[in-house]
């Protein structure tokens, strides 16, 4: 009997200690999260504030009422179209880069195309500082008449992202046991079927991760978009710069535009978390 009571006491004490430890951890985690999330919150809150509230002193922590005027202006003036432009350009160029890059990566991974060093050579292209190639490209585009067009930017981002896609996908594909492909070949598949039915499903998480990064690069790019667009296909980062004026900054517009431009990135990260599960090829060969 006494033993049981003692055991209960010990358990109780233990539980209390654990609870306090947990509480401490939560406090720390919440504190850190607040620090990092505050700028994001501030951005969102400004986008919903009236001009008075934005410049109010002391600062207004919580807007009186959520009002969408700042967004309304963007849509009325057509500024919001730049987010659409970015979306089209980033999406289409990502699809192209993923398609071409995946095929090229397969060739590199399985047929040793171009020998040992082609892979390094390709990825080195991606390491060039954009600023050193943007002016030659600008001249080329002027000559081709591609400045300020959708396809101009799409082709540019596709080309610029290809090395990255090839490099990443080659790595994922080399991790797939070659016996799986050989088995599929013997079972009656052609090379394309092997790629489609075996390699791509197994490289799925890699494909998503790579696609997200490719998309984010095109989405966030400023330098190419600044120089290669004018008025027709302005992308959202370039548009935001128009709000920084010599006299004053249009904070409301900057904030609202930034929010619009951030939402796709939230979605991209969510997708990535969903699909970034590794270890899918476990159990393919041996124990």
């Amino acid at each position: 009997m006494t033993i049981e009571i003692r055991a209960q006491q010990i358990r109780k004490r233990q539980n209390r200690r654990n609870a306090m430890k947990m509480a401490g951890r939560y406090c720390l985690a919440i504190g850190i999260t607040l620090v990092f999330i505050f700028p994001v919150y501030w951005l969102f809150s400004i986008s919903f504030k009236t001009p008075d509230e934005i410049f109010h002193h002391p600062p207004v922590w919580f807007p009186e009422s959520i009002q969408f005027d700042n967004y309304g202006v963007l849509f009325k003036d057509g500024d919001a179209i730049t987010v659409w432009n970015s979306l089209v350009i980033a999406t289409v160029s990502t699809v192209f880069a993923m398609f071409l890059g995946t095929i090229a990566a397969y060739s590199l991974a399985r047929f040793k195309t171009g020998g040992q060093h082609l892979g390094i050579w390709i990825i080195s292209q991606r390491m060039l500082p954009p600023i050193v190639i943007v002016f030659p490209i600008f001249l080329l585009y002027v000559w081709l008449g591609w400045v300020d067009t959708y396809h101009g930017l799409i082709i540019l981002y596709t080309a610029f992202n290809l090395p990255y896609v090839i490099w990443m996908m080659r790595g994922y594909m080399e991790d797939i046991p070659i016996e799986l492909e050989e088995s599929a070949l013997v079972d009656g598949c052609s090379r394309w079927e092997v790629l489609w039915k075996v390699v791509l499903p197994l490289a799925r998480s890699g494909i998503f991760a790579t696609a997200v990064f490719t998309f984010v690069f095109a989405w966030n790019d400023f330098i190419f978009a600044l120089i290669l667009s004018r008025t027709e296909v302005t992308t959202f980062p370039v548009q935001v710069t128009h709000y920084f004026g010599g006299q004053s900054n249009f904070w409301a517009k900057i904030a609202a535009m930034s929010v619009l431009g951030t939402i796709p990135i939230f979605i991209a990260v969510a997708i990535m978390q969903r699909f970034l599960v590794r270890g899918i090829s476990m159990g393919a060969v041996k124990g």
Partner: protein
Amino acid sequence: MARITITGLHKYYGNHHAVRGIDLDIPEGEFAVLVGPSGCGKSTLLRSIAGLESVNDGAIEIDGELVNDMRPRDRNLAMVFQNYALYPHMNVYENIAFGLRARKTPAGEIDKKVTDAAALLNLDLLLDRLPRQLSGGQRQRVAIGRAIVRDARLFLFDEPLSNLDAQLRDEMRGEIKRLHQEIRKTFLYVTHDQIEAMTMADRIVLMRDGIIEQQGPPLELFEKPTNKFVAGFLGSPSMNFIPSALVTEDGKVSVKFEDGTTLLLPEDRQSKYASQAERQIIFGIRPEHISRADGSDERVGVEKYQSVIDLVLPTGSRTYGTFHIGRTPVVAELQAHDVKGAGTALALLVDMNRAILIDPDTEIVI
């Protein structure tokens, strides 16, 4: 159903000459086992037949048709890989059905074949599982199932049992052999386990360093090896090789060991070796052909040897004892009660009818 004929096959990996001129003819419906030490080119030969490896020279024919440049899918054969190679993103059912789907088999037929194969291999309850949710033996059976549902003309197995524990391996050996008896197709089966080769094969093809050392029915290789390598490879424990000399005493040919003892060759082998007297040889004898002398049986051609056992190795069903002839350790198969322990002096009988004599230079059986 297919006859497979290979002539003058060579395969290089860079500078490495992995297959060095293989000639092989396996008739329809035969169970041929490729066996040999690790790295001798068994997998390479199998992969060349499957079309996964291009060959540098020679011809591979299936049913008289040259297939050297044919794509794997067009050769219509099935292969079980050394490490299963199951598709990790498909469940057991889809894994087994994969080859059928790839060949556009009607859905109803696929379902029937997959369920039949699952029943045969005891996989009925596992059809919805993914490969990673299976044990090694279950994966193995899925890999075999994937091959047998295919209406292939030739079945290739690359060490399909190498990752299983001893008991499961015995079981699966039986399964595969039964399967062969049922479907009567040509099987080409790779292993480096000589017991597996002996138990399963219609024909053993014994390879070393990219060439075939000897091929034929298991018993033929076991009893009439043509060289020292074959003699030593088959059988467990392996054959004893004892350096000795052929001598003539009183007009009879005998084998003389390093320690000076001589054992007379049997009558029917006398004439064969008469001309070979006074040369060095390697005397080859299997442990099971050395037994304890019990005084009663003095069969023809069985010679007596006086030994001192220095090591006893009981295995349960059999007991092996080693002794030395000169500096060479020799293993004999004894009865459990024959020896008390190390140091027992024992008169042994050596069955000279079953001994082989090997040329020490060429290592060929004379």
